[in-house]
């Protein structure tokens, strides 16, 4: 490539980055500005006001929201890894008609929008007495992310785990449980990391299930807390911006540290699938 073309394209990339960064920039100028400061949102304040952050944390009860979001995300992600990998194993290994049908079923479910079954699902949850519990948020997120998890695990098992290894272990007398958890599961580490990352982001950000099933303020997650907080503070966007920034920060930090895995996980999962 000629050096001039290279520089033109590099500048273009920089401009695109700047445009994409605008919303985050506005979020920051809004969050760090005093409520009485009516200067343009394009200008960064020459002071940094942390008052919004303390105020928002207190008033929106973010401690409670963070705890709930963490419990639900960790709970659902662990269930996904455990039961998802377990389910994918026979579906990837044993080619029977039943298995093919079940696998097809899981794939088809990926298309069904969780909201389409809102009415009966809500009714079911009420009947089970699970409304306003962490359990229901965990179970719903688990169920709705399960098809993709199984799909990714099955693809990975088929393409990378040698069958001979399992046969050798069987001949040595290993039972299914030992075989799977001691030999196969450790080899699934790369795809487990991918699933853990994608599903955590998805569950952490979930709003749909959370507003239906977590109506009591003691079980509100970050997204629900934030939507209520926005409703109450339409005239004080600085406060909302501070809360939004704090709610997004954990994922942003995780992302910046695990960027490589994010990107490679997403592309390998998508391309293999």
């Amino acid at each position, binding site marked *: *490539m000629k050096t001039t073309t*290279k520089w033109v394209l*590099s500048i273009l*990339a*920089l401009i*695109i980055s700047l445009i*994409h960064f605008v*919303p985050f920039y*506005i*979020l920051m100028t*809004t969050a760090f500005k005093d409520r009485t400061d*009516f200067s343009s*949102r*394009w200008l960064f304040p020459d002071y940094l006001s942390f008052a919004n952050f303390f105020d928002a944390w207190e008033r929106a009860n973010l401690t409670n929201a963070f705890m709930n979001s963490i419990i639900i995300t960790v709970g659902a992600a662990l269930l996904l890894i455990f039961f998802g990998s*377990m*389910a994918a*194993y*026979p*579906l990837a290994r*044993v080619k029977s008609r039943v298995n093919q049908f079940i696998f097809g079923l*899981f794939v088809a*479910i990926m*298309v*069904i*929008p969780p*909201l*389409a*079954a*809102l*009415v*009966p*699902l*809500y*009714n*079911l949850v009420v009947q089970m007495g699970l409304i306003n519990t962490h359990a229901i948020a965990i179970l719903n997120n688990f*169920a*709705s992310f*399960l098809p993709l998890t199984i799909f990714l695990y099955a693809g990975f098992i088929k393409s990378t785990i040698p069958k001979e290894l399992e046969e050798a272990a*069987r*001949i040595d007398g290993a039972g*299914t449980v030992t075989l*799977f958890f001691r030999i196969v599961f450790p080899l699934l580490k790369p795809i487990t990391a991918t699933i853990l990352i994608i599903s955590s*982001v998805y569950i952490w*950000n979930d*709003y*749909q299930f959370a507003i239906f099933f977590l109506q009591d303020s003691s079980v509100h997650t970050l*997204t629900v807390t*934030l*939507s209520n907080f926005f409703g109450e503070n339409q005239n004080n*966007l600085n406060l909302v*911006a501070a809360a*939004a920034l704090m*709610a997004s920060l954990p994922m942003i930090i995780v992302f*910046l540290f695990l960027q490589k895995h994010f*990107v490679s996980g*997403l*592309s*390998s999962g*998508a*391309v293999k699938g």
Partner: protein
Amino acid sequence: MSELIDKQKATISKKRRKISKEESSLWWMYIPALTAVSLFIIYPFLNGIQISFTDWNGFSQESNWVGLDQYKRLFSDPLTWLVVRNTLLYGVGSTFLQLTVGLVYALLLNRSIKFKALTRTIIYLPVIISPLIMGYIWVFFFAYQGGALNDIVMWLGFDPINALGNPSVNPWIIVLVNTYQFVGISMIIYLAGLQGISKDYYEAADIDGASAFQQFKKITLPLLMPSITINVVLNLIGGLKLFDVIVSLTGGGPGNASQSMSTFMYTLYFRREDAGYAATQGVLMTFMILAISLVALVYFKRKEVEA
């Protein structure tokens, strides 16, 4: 000697048989997953079809079988057409934008330029933000009073714009915000596809004197077809399901102007106690998304074969 071999063969086949027997007994491993999916997805979905034939209000014990009444209502309700139109706009509009913009970004970032890692990180960053929060961030930008956009508009001497309150504009803003948030995924999938194309093709084309555009059309695009298929299906499903960002950006308003099928269903059930009708909308939505994704999948898969 041959006797010994036969004996060995017999033990091996016995072991083989034992293995395949053990393998076919693995079905219990997917029972927990199947139970969860049946209970929380398949059963509610089927139950929803049943509810769509009733006038259930969502909380009382009683409901009446009304046959196809809700479906008649569905097809004569002017709001149905509005929300279907919006849903299609969100689905197809975002898909089109993400496909093209994502491709441009991927082609750019596939070259050896400066700021590559930085650009990729910034484009991908919104993917991890909650769509609900993303909506609020854009409210800070588009807000009528004190929004960042109007700072510029007023500085230029114009009257402030109420973009989010304008029913002919705000569905498009929703499309843009959704595209902005998820274009990073399209870009990454394209980049993975681009990296899988062998350089030999381009070298051969160079020798034959093919122009850059010809190379793009005859080599890059056909070989990217699998990535395009994935992107189309992912973006369609995502866009047609859109919910959070609509809630936070416009609340579905003004009136019902920017409602999608998901937000409309939510309103019907929780605000209007019209569960039977909400379930009917849900059935329509499921079949619509299934049909559209399936048609798109088959169409683009066929193109892959032709390439």
